[in-house]
Structures are given as structure tokens and as C-alpha cells.
């Protein structure tokens, strides 16, 4: 597919203090293999740096992975900051260890499109991203 255009761009970010990123990398590879451009920023990002990177890279989707349990403290800050930057069209998805009640609150109150728990089939994530991005483009 040389010369293909309009690739879906995704920023994968690890926010907070937990220190491993195997899950995020596996997702990153699956998205790449599905033809997406995946920008990976490394461990221990701050909310500010994630939002700035998402804006600069002009991604369609921001995937946040949090394993430390700080998701309710951090993810709402990020979605609010995106709004403040006028970048709420960047779609946020989350992954990591997030209890169901929290996940529901993130989706219903904080604009997160979906939460994927550990062990989610990467195919499901690929399809979800394709759906929300293409849905908007048409």
C-alpha cells in the first residue's frame, strides 16, 4: 500500500507512575499491522505532555493506558484539557486495569469512547477505532 493516504493516526500514552508498557506495545503493533500510524511516547507521561503531543501529532485517537489505579484522577483531567485546547474531536480510549463502574463513569461523564480491559482481543480495538474514526470522516 505504498502511497496510501489518510492513515488513521493514534497516540498511545502511558500516564502516571506504573512502569511497564508491554500491553501498550502489543496494542501498538496490532494497530500498525492494521495500517495505522502509531505514535508511542514512552513511560511516565504527564497529562500536559500527553495532550500537547496529541495536538502536535494531530492524531485521530488518543489511547491512554493506566495500570496504577490513578485512572479516575488522570483521565478526566486529560479529556478536560483536550476540551480547553479546542481538541475534543480527538477521540479518547482507555486501557489497563479499570473496574467496570469506573469505566462506565469515564464513558458517561468524561467523554471516553471506550475502555478496554486486560486481555481484550486486539482485533476488537482495531475495529472499534476504525469505526469511530471512519464514522466521523464520512
Amino acid at each position, binding site marked *: *500500500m505504498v502511497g496510501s*493516504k489518510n492513515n488513521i493516526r493514534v497516540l498511545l500514552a502511558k500516564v502516571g507512575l506504573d512502569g511497564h508498557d508491554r500491553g501498550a506495545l502489543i496494542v501498538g503493533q496490532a494497530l500498525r499491522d492494521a*495500517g495505522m*500510524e502509531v*505514535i508511542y511516547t514512552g513511560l511516565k507521561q504527564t497529562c500536559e505532555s500527553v495532550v500537547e*503531543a496529541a495536538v502536535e*501529532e494531530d492524531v485521530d485517537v488518543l489511547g491512554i493506558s493506566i495500570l496504577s489505579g490513578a485512572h479516575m484522577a488522570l483521565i478526566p483531567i486529560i479529556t478536560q484539557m483536550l476540551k480547553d485546547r479546542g481538541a475534543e474531536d480527538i477521540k479518547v480510549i482507555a486501557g489497563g486495569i479499570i473496574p467496570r463502574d469506573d469505566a462506565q463513569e469515564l464513558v458517561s461523564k468524561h467523554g471516553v469512547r471506550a475502555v478496554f480491559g486486560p486481555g481484550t482481543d486486539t482485533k476488537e480495538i482495531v475495529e472499534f477505532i476504525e469505526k469511530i474514526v471512519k464514522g466521523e470522516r464520512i
Partner: protein
Amino acid sequence: MSDLIDSLYRGLLQGDRRSAARLITMIENGDPLSIGVVKELHRHSGKAQIVGLTGLPGSGKSTLACGLAKKYREYGKTVGIIAVDPTSPFTGGALLGDRIRMQELAGDPGVFIRSMGSRGALGGLATATNDVINILDAFGMDVIIVETVGAGQVEVEIVKYAHTCVVVTMPGGGDEIQAIKAGILEIGDIFVVNKADKEGSSRTVADLEMMLEMKPGFDEAPWKQPVIQTVATNSQGIDELHEALDNHWRFLNETGKLEEKTSERMKAELIEVLNSKVSIAASKALSEDPKCREVLTRLIKREIDPHSAADQVAKYLIKGASQ
């Protein structure tokens, strides 16, 4: 220009990051609307110092770009970084990981980092990169660093657009210099042996210096390419690299080479745009224009050869264009 483009363009000139980022995406996607922007940009760019950073995969280019950017920031200069990574030819996807090594720049409003997959946009990667350079230039970045893996022709094409090309290598085994393609020795203005904390670094420097000295015309060359040792992970040698870049910039300015480089760059840009326009026009004519199709038919029947056929099609194209 459309309203959207108009407002993005105004945002860009006023320093709005999101506008700059969205314009870059349009360029990358070959959005037809972006051509208007490219035209306008021409008036607002041409001020930035462009530094190309190329070399072996994993040699530390991104880490160096980060260190250099920090140095330029100390001198009050704003910095744009364009990091190009290979796109998979099979899926069109890419993992762009250069930002991992640039975390220390996060949150600095004087720095703009953009990762690009090497999927050639319409008209080629070099053209797209050049347009993105112009956007960051118009956005007000004083120095623009372009990182590419120095593996092939495309990368060489990209760094051709730079005012100064830095070629990065590292110690290891003795094959590393061989691995630098012959062409790279020609395009490098400054050579860096990074990972100087590893064994064999001075040997690599000596090998490189010898290869450079053996190049024909070395003694008369007005610019002697320096070979600098760095340890990018702890900023060792970054001062020297920064100084060498300054020296080269001054050299370009004082000798009139800057104008020469700029006109080369403009010419290369023009040729690339021409190439893509001609090839699009030719494909269209060969499927739509009856006269051109006839030429093709005769070629297939082997009544004429490809060179004569091309000459005839070119004539029709030129006639068509002048009407």
C-alpha cells in the same frame, strides 16, 4: 482558499499549534485543499535554519535531536523537529517511536515535534517533508531538525533539503562505516560518532577521518567535515556539535553557499512538483486522450519504440498545456 484553510492558515501565522498540526496532516494526506496553503506558505517561509540528521538505525539520532534542541533553546531559539520513520510497505502502518527519546522537551512551547511515516504523500515524501518544513518555518521555528534513517535514496533526497546534513554513526565491530552508504559520505557536512562511551569509538573516528581525507579534492575543499564524538544520553559532545552547526551555518552565509543551497533546494522542489504533475497528466492522457491512446496502441503493436512513443506523448501534452 476555503474558509477552513483560511482560518487554519491564519492560526498558523498567529502561532496556534493546533492549526499548524492540522495543516501538516493535510499536507501528509495530499489533501487537494492543501495546495493553496503551500502556495501561500511560499511567502512566509525561508527564514529557518534546516538541519538534517541521518544515519544508522538506533545510532541515537532522536536522543541527539533532543540534546541539540535543548541547546538551541538555551540560546533562545525555537526548534521544530520532524522525525520520519519507515512505513510498512505491506500494511501502510508505522510505529513512530522517536518521541520516546525526546521527553525532556515536553511542555516547552518553543518546541514543536512531529512524527511522520514515510508513506509518500502525493508527489513524494521529499516534497511532503519540504512542505512540512515550510509550515514549521512559517510557524516561527528558528531551527528545524529533520531526522531520517539513512537507509536509502529517499532519505538522501530528504536531507538534501537541509542546510546542514549531520550523519550519525556509532562504534561497533568495524563494519559500521561500510554500512554507511557511499552516497552518505558525500552528503554529510558534519559526522557524529555517537555512543562514544562504548568501546572502539576512537577507532571509528579515525576510520571515518581517513575515509574523508581520501576523498578526491579533500585538500582544496573549503569546508572540512568535522568528526565529533558524542554521548547523547548524557549530553557529552552536544556543545561541540552545536558549535560545528553554527560554524557551518556561518560558512554557508559567508561564502555565498547558502544562496547556492537555497537555489538547489528550490530547483529540486520544482523538479519534484513537475515530475508528479507530468506523470499525473501523462497517465490521464494515456487513458483519455484519443491521440495518446493511439500512440500507446502502436507501441503495444511494436510499430514504434517506447522512446519515440514518449516523445510523441510529450508533444501532445505540451500542446494541450499551451492551449
